[in-house]
């Protein structure tokens, strides 16, 4: 069993007490809103369209059952009974009262959780593969390094006022499931000449100027991780643009100055920084490695699992879509999708959270993950326990066999909650999911990534969707642009805009035409939408989206 609880609980409690005092000073007028705003943002408190919002960090998406139960308690006590999984493996509560947030932070601190650096121009939550430590194709568990980065970056004095927010992702598997190319810094654990290290990517990001990152170092020995990351961020801290918010991310710095120039500065700074690391990071890493030691896997028969698959078609279908291959024989990782057709992508009720905590304790070696696609993963479940897990999930309406399918949509909160949004995303996702279920086409369409953002900031990762949908405000009316051919995984690609946008009520019919055209042109049932798009190019898909008007 691993221990995800940060060791610095005293610090977290101290920060919660500090925030309580700041809220008191805001309420008694000692602090103006202008003075208070950056303080609340440093603690993950936003003011949204209808209410405050509290974003809580779930470091690299790893959470224990008692922490999950605390989230359930907060949802019921301080919110409206639910929370929302985000695309950066965090959770957001949409309805907290400012006056109650200090109590929420105290309770979070009691289980080693907090909301520090979930906002502001700082290093945000380090994200990774939801199957870390479990995936069959994993070279090495990236979480000890993710924890090293988390503890190093938390309250790092030099990096509290960066030109813009800064996101790091780390992947340790053959298939990148952490979207390394779409982060300010992306790290891939690799091996070279028997030595472990990182392929280091820099300057990726979505938003209004989407860019895939570039490899700044083919191979960085793992011992140099912090010194090199510190060199990159300190170089960016000095040379990143502060005159224009929209040009302040590191992707613009690298793009405008050129990778070679930027890299030369980083390498020079790296030599300086390296001298300041005297082994404390290595000692910490050793502790983190112990903390993330693999659980005591059991060796048992899986006959019951096979028998249930043969007997129960719904169970078979669920195991076909919602399991991920595990590195240990007899085990699987379970994807619990929070994408029930017609429901809000990524929303979890307090009861559902408690069920997941119970299942993790009973069947999952006390381990839970929040995935970037707004689902929850039980990373280590013995196959003989899968029928029981399935039955419990089914009772709670969480056994929907749709992982990776049409309805497994990533959608940001959009204009239903977000003050930056220019259009809604949630109802578009709900309607697409329901439409294709009712049409009976979801299984036939197969693997498909639909990603929806309610504004150009792209929290819904629309650029990485095989089909991306971007909601905009066009002359006071919601309008949706469709992009095609994006991919966050196998061949990272930014989707290309297909053409003119669609009004709200035309989005589902447009996606319907698009997917029916795909079914017509695909080579066979094994050719995914994205593969057909790559083989044929955009023409047949654009023709489906924008049919020629019939001439009278």
């Amino acid at each position: 069993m691993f221990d995800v609880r940060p060791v610095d609980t005293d610090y977290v409690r101290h920060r919660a007490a500090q925030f309580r005092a700041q809220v008191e000073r805001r309420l008694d007028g000692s602090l103006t809103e202008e003075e208070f705003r950056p303080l609340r943002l440093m603690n993950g408190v936003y003011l949204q369209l209808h209410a405050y919002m509290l974003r809580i960090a779930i470091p690299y998406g790893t959470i224990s059952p008692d922490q999950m139960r605390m989230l359930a308690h907060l949802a019921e006590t301080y919110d409206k009974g639910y929370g929302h999984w985000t695309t950066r493996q965090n959770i957001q509560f949409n309805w907290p009262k400012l006056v109650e947030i200090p109590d929420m932070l105290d309770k979070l601190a009691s289980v080693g959780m907090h909301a520090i650096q979930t906002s502001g121009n700082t290093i945000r939550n380090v994200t990774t593969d939801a199957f870390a430590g479990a995936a069959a194709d994993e070279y090495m568990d990236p979480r000890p390094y993710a924890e090293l980065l988390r503890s190093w970056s938390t309250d790092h004095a030099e990096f509290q006022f960066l030109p813009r927010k800064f996101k790091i992702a780390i992947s340790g598997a053959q298939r990148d499931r952490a979207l390394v190319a779409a982060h300010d810094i992306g790290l891939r654990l690799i091996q070279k000449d028997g030595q472990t290290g990182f392929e280091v990517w820099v300057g990726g990001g979505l938003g209004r100027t989407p860019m895939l990152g570039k490899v700044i170092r083919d191979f960085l020995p793992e011992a140099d991780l912090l010194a090199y990351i510190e060199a990159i961020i300190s170089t960016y801290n000095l040379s990143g643009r502060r005159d224009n918010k929209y040009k302040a991310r590191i992707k613009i710095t690298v793009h405008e100055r050129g990778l070679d120039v930027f890299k030369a500065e980083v390498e020079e700074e790296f030599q300086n920084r390296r001298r300041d690391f005297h082994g404390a990071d290595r000692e910490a890493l050793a502790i983190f490695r112990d903390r993330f030691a693999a659980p005591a896997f059991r060796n048992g028969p899986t006959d019951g699992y096979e028998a249930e698959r043969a007997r129960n078609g719904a169970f078979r279908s669920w195991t076909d879509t919602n399991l991920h291959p595990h590195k240990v024989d007899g085990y699987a990782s379970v994807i619990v999708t929070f994408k029930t057709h017609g429901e809000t992508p990524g929303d979890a009720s307090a009861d559902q959270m408690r069920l997941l905590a119970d299942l993790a304790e009973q069947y999952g070696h006390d381990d839970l993950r929040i995935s970037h696609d707004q689902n929850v993963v039980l990373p280590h479940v013995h196959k003989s326990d899968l029928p029981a897990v399935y039955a419990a999930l089914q009772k709670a309406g969480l056994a929907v066999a749709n992982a990776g399918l049409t309805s497994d949509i990533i959608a940001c909160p959009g204009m239903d909650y977000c003050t930056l949004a220019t259009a809604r995303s949630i109802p578009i996702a709900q309607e697409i999911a329901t439409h294709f279920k009712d049409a009976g086409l979801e299984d036939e369409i197969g693997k498909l990534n639909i990603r929806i953002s309610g504004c150009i900031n792209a929290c819904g990762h629309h650029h990485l969707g095989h089909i991306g949908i971007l909601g905009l405000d066009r002359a006071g009316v919601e309008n949706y642009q469709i992009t095609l051919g994006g991919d966050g995984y196998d061949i990272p690609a930014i989707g290309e805009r297909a053409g003119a946008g669609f009004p709200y009520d035309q989005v589902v019919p447009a996606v319907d035409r698009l997917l029916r055209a795909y079914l017509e042109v695909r080579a066979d049932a094994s050719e995914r939408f994205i593969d057909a798009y790559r083989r044929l190019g955009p023409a047949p898909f654009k023709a489906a989206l924008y049919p020629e008007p019939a001439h009278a």
Partner: protein
Amino acid sequence: MSKAFVPTAAKPGVITANDLREGHNLWMCEDGWTADPAQATLFEDEAIADLALLKAVGQSNIVVGPYLVEARRGPNGPEPTHFREAFRQRGPSNYFHGIQTLKQAKQSEASNV
């Protein structure tokens, strides 16, 4: 404080903000602030609206982020002209939460009288 919009008799506006302590949406009305947008004061004059907005900014112990936004005169009070404000006045579309619950409570109160 934001003031991108200038109200006129033809294009009036309301002043809206969020409650400091709890976060919910509020509208400036005759005797302070209300959670019912239909009760909001409709401003048709730039100077009067500017003064009211200054007053709102001065009430930072009650509200956060006041701003003036276009509205139209409706049969039951001011109505939003842009969908963003319509969502603020209604609540989210995925759950029956937010202002819409207050409206329902008010209606059920009226029907019980």
